[in-house]
């Protein structure tokens, strides 16, 4: 198994606050890796950091290349996709166009050719793939404001997959889902892994993460407090403390 994403001593600070504090983390290809932590632990900031939305220090390697200084769109083009907790769909475009934006790459020649005679072919396969994996082909021509919140979540995930990334970071995909929907989401995630896309899942829904992930990191106040397989994490006293809300975790 090759290492897809490796962070070493990754640090994000907001003023004096260390939102992500020296995190070392590895995501192996083909695995479903989870990151959990209580509210405010720095989970979303961690995703923002590796995908290029907040400046970081330390090292972020993707597919062996150092990407920590690159702008967000270049990281996306390298195959590092993400979703948002707040979904952030393109409200002005229909669902299919939402996916097309992610699926299509544009060259200068292609741009000029499009002005004269726009092609319909580019990125078609990727859009179809994403629509099918998440089973939302019937929504293709709808606008984002016409579909339900659950469907919007699927579209948001489909858009991240439409660029055929190597790794997709999912930010709280289970937020607001009930138990059975959460279970169905787990099945979908497994299908995505089977389709050859690695997933880095961030959530505070312990049930989902423990059920579907292969390997789990637990962070609190920006720092890693535990890592391991779901069984190891489940038994870790620090994790139990963090989630039962014990005020101070004694340093050992």
């Amino acid at each position, binding site marked *: 198994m090759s290492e897809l994403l490796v962070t070493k001593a990754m*640090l994000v600070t907001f003023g004096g606050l260390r939102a992500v504090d020296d995190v070392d983390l590895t995501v192996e290809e083909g695995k479903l890796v989870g990151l959990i932590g209580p509210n405010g632990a720095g989970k979303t900031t961690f995703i923002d950091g590796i995908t290029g939305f907040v400046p970081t220090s330390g090292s972020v390697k993707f597919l062996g290349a150092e990407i920590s200084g690159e702008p967000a769109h270049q990281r996306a083009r390298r195959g590092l996709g993400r979703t948002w907790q707040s979904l952030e769909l393109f409200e002005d475009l229909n669902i299919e*166009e939402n996916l*097309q934006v992610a699926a299509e790459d544009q060259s200068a020649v292609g741009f000029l050719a*499009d002005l*004269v005679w726009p092609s319909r072919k580019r990125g078609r396969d990727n859009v179809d793939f994403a629509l099918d994996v998440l089973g939302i082909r019937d929504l293709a021509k709808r606008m984002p404001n016409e579909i339900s919140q659950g469907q919007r979540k699927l579209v948001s995930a489909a858009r991240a997959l439409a660029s055929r990334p190597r790794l997709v970071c999912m930010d709280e995909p289970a937020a607001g889902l009930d138990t059975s929907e959460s279970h169905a989401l787990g099945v979908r995630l497994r299908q995505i892994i089977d389709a050859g896309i690695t997933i880095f899942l961030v959530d505070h829904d312990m049930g989902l993460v423990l059920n579907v992930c292969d390997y789990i990191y637990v962070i609190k106040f920006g720092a890693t407090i535990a890592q391991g397989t779901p069984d190891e994490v489940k038994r870790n006293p620090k994790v139990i403390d963090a989630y039962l809300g014990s005020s101070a975790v004694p340093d050992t």
Partner: protein
Amino acid sequence: MGARSPTPRPSRRLDIDRSITSIARWVVVGVGVALLGFVLVSSDYRDNFLSGSGIALGALVAAIALGVVLTYRGSGVVNLANGAVAMYVGYVYTVLRRDGDLFLPPLPNPLSVVEGVVHRFQTHDTFKLPDLPTKISFGAAMTFWPALVISLLFCIALGLALHFLIFRPLRTAPPLAKVVASVGLFLYLQAVVVRRFGITPRAVKPMPFVNKKQIDLGLFKLSQEQLFVAVVVLVFALCLWILFQWTRFGLATRAAAENEKGAVVLGFSPDFLAGTNWVLSTVITGLLGIFVASINSTIEPIVIPALIVPALTAALVGSFSSFGRTTVAAFVLGMQVPLIQYLGVNSDWFPKSGNLPFPGGERLLPLLGIVLVLFLAGHALPTRGAIISGRLPFSPTPPRWAIRIAGPALAIGAGVVGLFYFGPGYRGALSDSLIGIIICLSVVVITGFVGQISLAQMAFAGISAFMVSKLSFEHGWPFPWPIFAGALAAMLVGLLVALPALRVRGVNLAIVTFAFAVAVDDMIFKNQSVSGGYNGAPVKAPAWVNPDHPSTHFLGLKVGDGKQPSVTTAIFCLIAVVVLCYLVANLRRSTTGRQMLAMRSNERAAAAAGVNVSGTKTLAFAISAFIAGIGGAVIAYRSGAATADKFDYTKSLVFFAFAYLGGISSVSGAIAGGFLVAGGLVFTFLQQSLGVPSEFTLMLGGLGLILTAILNPEGIAGGLRRDGMRLVARARARRPTADAALPPVRGAREGAA
């Protein structure tokens, strides 16, 4: 600097990123202080910098800027029309003192339409319906105090009207709509004054209690009047500071800026706060408009409204919240004007154009100030929670049949009509409408597709037009190469403007581009050696494009009646429009078009989807400026010369207005906008058939812009599309077939709501 973390660690990139901006900030401040010191040390420079005229101008700029800050704090509106407010109130006062009349804006009179229709069939003298009053007369010419009191009452009424009629309905609208409404207000106020009094300056009577006697205050030597206005503005600024710092009203306004509930908790309705701030703004602005006009003894409707640019610079320096910093910056910006003018005349090193000093130098500092402040304070991507609320008008994907069949067919139809039916009057109107379509298209690309407001489109067009004149007339370039060279030049300038746009968005970008348009207007278009003065810079065109060419033989047919513009000139405009419409429609259908709209919806998500946000924005500016450049070239060829008046800064606002009226987000909207432009088909029809005078064009344009922003943000084309879809949806509902199972159409749903 922010608090350090307890255990400092090497975080290189962060520190560098932060330190570059802060170093740049200190460099800018340092250079500014050094320049100021240099100016104050040299006695020559000092006397011109601390001159009375500069201080009076600074006082007016400060008042306009204070008004801008007030309305921004009160209701979140950046009022681009505040300079126009100063000018308008100045006119109200001037007329009261001269004639004792309160002039009224032209009011819509339904009878005049009846009159116009009747006049089509019989002579004008036989049928006359009553007109609406143009003024309220208070008897004879007024003395200072009554005129001032009535003007102040007018200011209060104006402030309330602006709040209740325009900006309160727009409270939850996207920033674009608020900017659009303030542009509409700018055009409307200016057009009303031009309609009533023309553009020639009017004499203003002096104030009774101060005179032109010089007072020596050591450093400053200025007249009583000038000292008076400076003191008035400083007192206002101090009062505002006290009001906002120490009273519950100020606290509530500050709270409401963050969260309207905060004001409610303090026992103030946000509505009351916004309205009061509007009134304060118009009173302060209007009062200084009156005083400064009295000092200058004249008033005119073009220059004062443009003082909004230095005023906005000052407001930006004060972060749209600090009255003190705003006032100081405004005075500096006013006081540098006489200094720059003095340097232009007396310094050898000052850039010359011909024998005259390079014009418009005093515009440079405000523009530079805006760019620097925004660049140092801006962010490349909006951060968490700073997503622009509110939506821009929907931008539909043009269907294939429209691009490949309907569009060209329509265009050919229009060409045939232009050739064989229209006389010279309507032919000229058609040509101007076609040119309007081109400029509107350039607005559609930058504002409709990418959501960036550019108020400098006619500056791009003008650069191209004068380039065309130079290349075709002086260098003898053959047609059509000057067009492309001109458009390329416009594009390069557009790229320059795009630089701040990479870190600046929304209203701030509108400010940058507006300042740019004003600077280009003064520095290039008003420069005699470029613009060729009154007759303009001539353009050499081939016979068939030349508007004065009497007739052309085409395929053995004699085309044309010898009247300007020639039929083939109109066809030349038509060709340009068809090509550009086709390209822009394709752009909307292309990958790049989708990326632009994705970016317009959500820059962060677009970046996550692999869209190069900076690159796409730059590209959009380049395309938009290129199209505007083609438009400028076509304007130059269509009238046989490039003339400065076609490209002055108000024209950029006007075309933006008509593009928004037509529909900012689609090619069909640009076409609708083109029909509406001044001198275009719609107004020519109104004028020739219904007798609506041409001065009404801008007034109706400004008013229409305000109404569109409030009532129908999707513009005429969007409104028609929505109605059409509603009809289709209704027809489907009546006919319960398989069609009824189709997903609801977006437009139809909105229409029904």
